[in-house]
Structures are given as C-alpha cells and as structure tokens.
C-alpha cells in the first residue's frame, strides 16, 4: 500500500525487490534538505566517482557472497594489480594496453588461487582469502619497494573525464554493474552461483560442476578487483601498495546492505549498486555537512543501521 506509487508492474516493485533503495532515497532527500551543495550535477558526479572503486569491488564480491563464500582479499588484490600495472608500464616499458591486460591477469590469478585453496584445499573461504590478502598486499609492497609508482599519462587518463563532464570511473562502474547483472541473471555461471549458495549438495547432485563454478566465481571477483585497482590508481595517477586498505569490508557491506545474505543464495547487482551508493553518499554528505571527524564514524554507523532497518521494517509492514 505504502509503496503503491512506485509499483511498476504487477506483483513486484523496484522498491520491494531492491532492499535498501528506500534507504538511499531517504538519505538523498535528507542531504538535499540539509546541504545546498549536495544536489548539484558536479557533486552527484563526484559521488559517482567516489563510489566507483567500492562498487566495482562489491560487484565482484556479489558473485562470491551469492555462492555462500566471502572474499577478504579484494582490496589487497586491487592494490597489487595497480602496482603491477604501474610497474610493468613504467619500469619495464610495456605498452599500456598490454600492461593493463597483464594487471587484469594478475587479479584473475589471485582469484583462481583463492578458488583452488577453497575447492581443492577445502579451506574455509574466510581463511583462504585472508591468507591471500596478506600475500597480495605483501607482494605489492615487495614489487613497489613500498613506494608509490607514478602511472604513465596514457593510463591515468582512465581516471579523467570524457569531455569535461563524464568521469571515466563512473562509466567503468556502470559497465561492470551491467556485466554483473547479466552474468547473474542470464548466464549458466551466474545461475550456478545461486544454486551453489542456496544448496551446494543439491547443486552437485544436479550435475553442476561445483569446483569449476567456484573457481570461476573467485576468478571473477579477482578480475573485478583488478579493474577496481586500475580505476583507483588512475584516479590517483599513481599506484600505491597500501591503496584500498580495508575496502573489502566496504565491499561486503555494500553487498549485504543491498540485500544479499552471507549464507548465500541471495543477492543482486542492483542491490549491490545501491549499497555502494549509500556508503558513498553518506561519506560525501558528512563532508558537506562538516560533521566533525570524530563524530563521522558514529554517524556513519548509525545511518548504515538505519538504512537497512528501514528496509526490514518496510518488509515487515508489507506482510
């Protein structure tokens, strides 16, 4: 009843299907009222740019969480890929398309190692990817000798805008989001992720090659992390071995805020996108409102809880 206006087609609404969208809307309305600087084109584009890295990491994380796993290594893998890109493109003079491809391969390789540890090694995903976090972070430091490596201009254009307005990171984020939606909804691999996350034994006994599908899942997460790392480095025009520290928590939070469950079988690309936007809008808004640095963390915590609470309350009312 309450959501009647937004009901688009019979039996379902964008709102009820996408978790915290209502939280995001409330947040946007509140910030618009509180700060005159919020609802401007430039600021919204800024929010988009600021959401990009988390969102891309979160899209990759979505695959993993849907299949009932978790990937704590995405932040570190992003940093490693960025360092590899900068290192090959500068020290080794590789042309940038090749270097980018190579960085992507590094991300995918990290994901495959995660997947192999989990499937063949039977390690819990938490442990396997925590180990990978350390390894990737450490290798990034070793390769870069602990110093940031400047990116050649050719690559750092990726962090710029097309024309004077359209930021490339936003475009990359949207493309990765669409890819995620298509993979999850329309491909065999995507549907297999839901099946594995919902009931792994049933998936196995229905002829799904669980091992292979999990390898694909973690490889995707690794690949997405690499893309996020490249976007991040090109925004900063330099690859930092300590970049994206702790971003895995943000990525997981975005996925869960978006309605996925850590016990698997549930999750959507759009939900993840909304989750990532909530986090970015929140940080942006707190800066605009000049909330004191110490209170910011408190406010972020409270607002995240409220945003998700809104969703559960609405759902309960709907029943």
């Amino acid at each position, binding site marked *: 009843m309450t959501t009647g206006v937004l009901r688009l087609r019979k039996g379902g609404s964008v709102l009820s299907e996408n978790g915290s969208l209502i939280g995001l809307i409330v947040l946007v309305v509140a910030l618009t009222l509180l700060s005159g600087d919020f609802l401007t084109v430039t600021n919204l584009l800024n929010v988009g740019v600021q959401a990009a890295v988390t969102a891309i990491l979160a899209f990759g994380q979505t695959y993993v969480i849907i299949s009932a796993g978790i990937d704590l290594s995405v932040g570190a893998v992003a940093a490693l890929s960025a360092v590899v890109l900068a290192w090959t493109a500068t020290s080794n003079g590789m042309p940038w398309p090749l270097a980018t491809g190579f960085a992507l391969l590094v991300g995918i390789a990290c994901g495959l190692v995660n997947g192999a540890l989990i499937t063949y090694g039977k390690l819990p995903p938490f442990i396997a990817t925590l180990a990978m976090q350390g390894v990737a972070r450490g290798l990034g430091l070793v390769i870069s000798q602990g110093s940031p490596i400047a990116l050649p201009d050719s690559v750092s254009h990726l962090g710029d805008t097309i024309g004077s307005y359209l930021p490339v990171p936003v475009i990359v984020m949207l493309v990765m989001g669409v890819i995620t939606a298509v993979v999850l909804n*329309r491909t*065999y691999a995507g549907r*297999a992720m839901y099946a594995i*996350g919902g009931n792994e034994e049933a998936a*196995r*006994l229905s*002829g799904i090659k669980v091992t292979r599908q999990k390898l694909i899942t973690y490889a995707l997460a690794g690949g997405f992390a690499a893309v996020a790392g490249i976007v991040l480095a090109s925004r900063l025009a330099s690859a930092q071995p300590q970049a994206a520290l702790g971003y895995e928590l943000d990525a997981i939070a975005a996925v869960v805020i978006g309605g996925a469950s850590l016990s698997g079988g549930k999750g959507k690309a759009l939900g993840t996108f909304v989750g990532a936007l909530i986090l970015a809008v929140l940080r942006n808004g707190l800066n605009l409102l000049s909330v004191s640095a110490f209170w910011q963390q408190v406010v972020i915590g409270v607002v995240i809880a409220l945003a998700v609470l809104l969703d559960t309350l609405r759902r309960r009312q709907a029943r």
Partner: protein
Amino acid sequence: MTEEILRVRGLRKRFPGVVALDGVDFDLRPGEVHVLLGENGAGKSTLIKMLSGAYHPDEGTIFVDGRETTIRTAEDAQRLGIATIYQEFNLVPQLTVAENLMLGRPPRRFGFVDKKAMYARAQEMLDRVGVDADPRAPLESLGIARMQMVEIAKALGLDARVLIMDEPTAVLTTSEVERLFTIVRQLKEQGVAIVFITHHLEEIAQIGDRVTVLRDGASVAEVPADTPEDELVRLMVGRSIDQQYPRERSTQGAPLLEVRGLTRTGVFEDVSFEVRAGEVVGLAGLVGAGRTEVVRAIFGADHYDSGEVLVDGRRLPRGNVTAAMEAGLGLVPEDRKGQGLVLGADIRENLGLVTMRHATHAGFVDRAGQTKAAARVAEQLGVRMSGLTQEVRTLSGGNQQKIVIGKWLLAEAKVLILDEPTRGIDVGAKVEIYQLINSLTAAGHAVLMISSDLPEVLGMSDRVLVMARGRLAGELSAAEATQDSVMALAVGELEETA
C-alpha cells in the same frame, strides 16, 4: 527376460563407525519396477546413492548394460541415463520452481539462459505430474508435499532409462500417490527401469514387479512383488508383526486442548475442535488443506488473526512457542530437516533439545542425565546408530525421524501434536511408535495426529477430523471413519456428513 540394464555385485561401503553396505547384489531390467525393502538404516539410500554418483563404493562392481562402470559424479550418472529422486530433497529453496526443475541444465540461447523457454518447459513438467504451482514462485513458498512433486518432476524431466525413487510417496496423499503410479506405469511401458523404495508395504503389490530385501547392509532375499506382506515383513525385520495398528483405547477425560474459531485469512478459517485426555485425534485431508498451518498456529510457531487456543482450560498467548510448551503442548514438525533437527549436532544433543530447559539447574545443564535419557529413548525407538555422538546428518532418513519424535517423547507433553510422525519409518518402528502413543494416552495425555497415511489415521485415531481448503469439513468417530468417508469429506464440496 530382457537383458539387465544394471547389475550390482558385492557392493560394500563403510562410514566411520558403521558398515552401511556389506556385500549387496542387485540387478535391474528395463520395464520393471524393482522395489528395495529394508528397515531404517538397512542401507537402501546408500545403495542408490552409489548408483547416482553421490557416493563411491569401497568395494564391489557396478555393471551398466553389461559393462563394468565407475560412476564418479552426478554427471556420470546423468550421462548413463540414470535419474534419481533423493529421499532428502535436493532442491535450492531460494530459487524459483522453474529453476529447480532444470537445475544445472537451464535452456540456453546464444550462451545465455533463456528464461522464457525455461518457464514454458517448467509449466510442461509441472503439468505432467499434475501439480498446481507457479514456475516463477520461489521454491521455499511451497509446502513439503509440493516440493516432493517438484523433485519428481525434475527427475522425470531427464528422460532417463533408469529412474531411482527413494521414498517418493512418504509425504504424498492418496491422490498424489495415484497420480505418481499412473506416471510410473507409463514409464514402464516405455521400457524405463525403475528402482522404488517405500515403507508402505501395500504399494509394493500395486506397483512393483520384484523386491530385493536388504538387512543390515546385505541383500538377504529377492522375491516377487506379490509376496504376502507378512512374509515381506518377516524377511525385513527377521520376525513377524501381528498387529500393524495396535491402538488400545483408554478412558477419555476432560478436554486438554481446545481450539476455537482459529482463523488466518487466506490460509485457514474458523477451525474449532477439542482433544480430550486419553484421546488420539487424527487430522486428515489432502495436501495443502492447511493442516500443518493450523497446528503450527496452535503451537505458537506462526501467528493467527483471530480465535483462541486453550490448554487445560488456560488461554495461550499468540505466537509464543515457549508459552505453549510450558502449558504442555508439543509439536513434532513435518519437515524434519528444516524444523526438527540440528543436523550438524549429534544424536544426544538433538534428543535433549526440548528437555534441556528442565535439565538446567542454576544455568548448568545436567549433561550426564541428558545422556542417560537420550540413550533410553534411542534404545526404545531402535535408532540405528554408531553411538549417541553420531552426527544426525549422517543418520538414515527414518532414523532421523525417530530422533525428532524421540525428543518430544522425552518432554512428556500433555498434548502432543504429531505432523506426519511416521514419515519414512519402517513397519517395525512404526509399531513401536504406536505403542508409545498408547502409553501416552494411557497416562492421560492427548495426541493430535496429522497423517497423510490414511490406514494409519484410521487405525490409530479415536476420532478423525477432516480438513478441506482451510476449513474443518467434518468429524468422524472411529466407527464411522473409513477410507471412503474420509476421502469424501476431504474432496467434497463442504457437504454435510452426520
């Protein structure tokens, strides 16, 4: 006769602490229904899981079409034309019905999943087994019976040469069973070979051709399907059972459970009845009649909109399981995996779950006492296990069901509600459970029993309530209740029956 499609020789399988199979021989011909019979834990499910690629034998050989074959994965089995309906559903609750029907092999176009084709095909598959469900609905919104029909439809969709069915009829009512048998007969005519497992002995003669009896993990006999039931029982349990339904009526006392005008809009309406001390009341009806919903509401597991529930004259608060339990109610739920058991915990833990509150003093649980009580009940119900510390997940289906019942027997509830209590339980153990029901009522307790097994309802109830479409369609005394009169009420258009 035609050549064997499947032949099994000397199959052995051991699990930690148990030898599940100890040299099984078995063979299967095209166009026959080969029944596997055996007590709970005899090894039936283990045997078929080795044919479907879920387990690997430690020893022994499997021949398919006369050639020695190893079946490593479910895919191998599918390639060999073997489809399996497992005892415990292998479905994904979060996915839609359609996706479950085509799990692992969705129709694809240009590499992408073709949802339109998937829903169309799903509708066909559902129509084939005659189940009324929306292919787009999430599977978890279905009751357990319709899930079973989905599982059946899924296996039929493979168009296999060998169809293995592990207790498909355990949760179905008579009409669904008949529909299933019609399908099985069609398949037989097409030359499909069928392995059929059931604990309902009367079904053997109806549908079977041959019976292989397993005992303690070994095949002990192969007999024709028209072997008399007594003989089958003797082969299976090693002794004969003289009375299938040993109900001993006890004197009836005051009403212990009163339900008045219980209503949840759209699910059940105006349900009123009472159960007296010393009485066994059967609750019959077709699948989806709303019986489970009613008893869950009574027990406080779900909410209801109006009406009231009284235990021993006192009114229960809504939606409060603990209050219901304290007042003396107990519920054995129909879905043992989802609602009855902590699968990852051991037998002792599960048996002690309900009584744990009473075994607690100053916050500490009397674990020794609990262990003793658990051992007693496990012994009483003849649970086949390697020990009280065996994980419940690894018990056979029937033995799991015994644990669910056992934990409530320990609780000594004044009014025990049983939802499909003997689902998947072998004939010998059933009699044990019936005798326990007898001793409960003899002690002045009351029992409300939902069962889709009509002979059981008729054999054990002092009174039969029949539900249809969420309403009580009528009440029959033990004398009035017959297969026909119950079915008439269950199907009929709310006609009056005195």
